[in-house]
């Protein structure tokens, strides 16, 4: 059921998108600062960040609802920065869905086609095709308020892509759905995006959503992109402490490089713990650094087990998460480490107050140069 199979399809595919030095300065704050980004044709890119990081502002500038203070936006190589929203040919899915309450599902989906003056017969065919794609065939005569949240979401999606826009923007489109439905919609969205080879820029603050759906993730903070990379890379090799902290959990430790050679480095934390890592990014002795270790990378060691890093401590607290248990371990050196372990129900799980040995490999240690904390 690829788009090309349909005789009336416009046959358009997603186009590449380029943002060049995009900035938005409001009266009292810089919302987006000199942002440059390239999105490939048919790529699913997610802007991920906390609220106020500038991701929605960026989206509004691309859609044409905010005028950038500086910078250019290109779609398919053509600058669109000065075009009004209705001439940009971009599909937008809003967080509130923004379905027209006075129009039926059919008329909602037909709206962009009517605006493009397509003949009625073609409109009917294309809307039917779009409703079929989102599995809402037969509901064309309903009004939005007669649909469930998930159905409304799918209609909004159909409406934004029925005219095969070169670019589809989505602003936290799954935010209002409950967890189960959200997960189903993530898969559905991904399927549609691949089927129609849509270029998608997706805005969310939900890291799980970003990791599951995206080809690449751009993590935003304070109006800047901290890192753009594939989900794996961004999770496993975060380039800044912010990215390490925002995606998943991480134990963050400050310290100084005590020794370093070509393959290994040793960091002594302020409390005196020594941590061995392998990817030192060329930093030498005396460098102030920030360490990040993911809780799931730390394991409990038996009395004779060995590891690259070993630390002894006492379990202060154990939090039951269902699929896993999160332990807070106070090390002898004084640091508090968070350890996450699969819930195995084999009776070996440590209890609060119990002395334990922790171990983690050198690969698990993520090193960043210490930065002035803003």
């Amino acid at each position: 059921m690829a788009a090309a199979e349909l005789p009336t399809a416009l046959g358009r595919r997603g186009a590449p998108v380029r943002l060049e030095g995009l900035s938005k300065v409001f009266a009292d704050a810089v919302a987006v600062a000199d942002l440059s980004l390239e999105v490939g044709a048919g790529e699913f890119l997610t802007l991920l960040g906390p609220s106020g990081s500038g991701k929605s502002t960026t989206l509004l500038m691309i859609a044409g609802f905010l005028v950038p203070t500086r910078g250019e936006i290109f779609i398919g190589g053509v600058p669109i920065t000065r075009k009004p929203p209705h001439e940009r040919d971009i599909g937008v899915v809003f967080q509130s869905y923004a379905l027209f309450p006075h129009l039926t599902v059919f008329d909602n989906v037909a709206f962009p086609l009517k605006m493009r003056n397509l003949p009625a017969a073609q409109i009917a065919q294309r809307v039917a095709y779009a409703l079929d794609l989102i599995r809402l065939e037969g509901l064309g005569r309903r009004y939005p308020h007669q649909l469930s949240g998930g159905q409304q979401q799918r209609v909004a999606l159909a409406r934004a892509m029925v005219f095969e826009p070169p670019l589809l923007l989505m602003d936290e489109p799954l935010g209002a759905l409950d967890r189960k439905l959200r997960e189903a919609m993530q898969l559905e969205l991904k399927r549609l995006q691949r089927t129609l080879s849509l270029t998608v820029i997706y805005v969310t603050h939900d890291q799980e959503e970003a990791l599951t759906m995206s080809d690449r993730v751009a993590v935003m903070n304070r109006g800047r992109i901290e890192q753009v990379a594939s989900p794996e890379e961004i999770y496993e090799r975060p380039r800044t402490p912010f990215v390490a902290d925002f995606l998943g959990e991480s134990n963050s430790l400050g310290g100084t490089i005590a020794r370093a050679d070509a393959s290994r480095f040793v960091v002594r934390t302020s409390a005196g713990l020594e941590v061995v890592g392998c990817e030192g990014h060329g930093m030498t002795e005396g460098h102030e650094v920030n360490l990040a270790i993911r809780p799931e990378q730390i394991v409990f060691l038996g009395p004779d087990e060995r590891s690259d890093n070993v630390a002894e401590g006492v379990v202060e607290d154990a939090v039951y998460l269902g699929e896993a248990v999160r332990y807070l371990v106070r090390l002898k050196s004084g640091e508090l480490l968070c350890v996450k372990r699969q819930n195995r129900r084999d009776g070996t799980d440590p209890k609060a107050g119990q002395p334990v040995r922790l171990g983690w490999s050198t690969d698990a240690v993520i090193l960043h140069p210490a930065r002035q904390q803003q």
Partner: protein
Amino acid sequence: MTGRDLAAPMVLSSWERRFPAEGRARLLLLLPALGFLLLVFAYPLWSIVVRSVTDPQPGFGHYVQIATVDVYLRVFSSTFSLALTVTLATFVLGYPVAYALARSRGLLQAILVMLVLLPFWTSLLVRTYAWMVILGRYGVVNKTLMALGLTDEPIRLLHTGLATHIGMVHILLPFMILPIWSVMARIDPALLMAARSLGASQLSAFVRVYFPLTLPGVLAGGLFVFILALGFYITPALLGGPSDLTISMLIAQQVSELLAWGFASALAVTLLVVTLVVILLAGRLLGTEKIWEGLK
């Protein structure tokens, strides 16, 4: 447990379901207002209805007269056309104001709201007299026109149909603006952005999305103004000419000049019935829920 307690869930009347115990206690608070309404509204209304078919002699003679005599039919039709014109004029003038209210924020909005509500704080009579001063033979308008050399002698403005229209539009304007504004304020701004992103120009986004969504407010405001205009008395009596007779003026004339209480009552009842018919028709044609939606 008493038998009453056991049976209670089964014999809950719709009354009890709709007003649970604590709600029923609250209903007591309505009693004074209800009593007052019965005394000063329901009872007089009933006695007017009775009088219209008993005074001076029993029968439906008054109604036959209203339905057959040309003059009365003409007064009814001219009153309806006056009400309709005023309704249209308040819509044309009020819609942009409501839009400005809905789009403004903060201090500007507060000022605009006050300007809209200001007329409510002055008496209807005072406002009508103000129009007499403005439109009078040597009023502001005529003086300005003469100063500009557009006319040599004062134009007759007061005591014309035009003066009635101007005065009524001014007084009824807030009743059109407020319901439209309340509907506009609840329209999700994302709807307009969605329309724009889907290819609608500013104009077609307004025509195809915004305006249809404000219709409940327009209908509510229109109904308000139309019904109030049908029964308007002071303004047409003071500003209008002798030939611009409205139903309410006719009723007053019958009572105060001819002491024809029975016929005046029949006119009042006819006006009431016709107004109710208009409301019902509007509800049927346009969907009552839309109108109430506009009033919420």
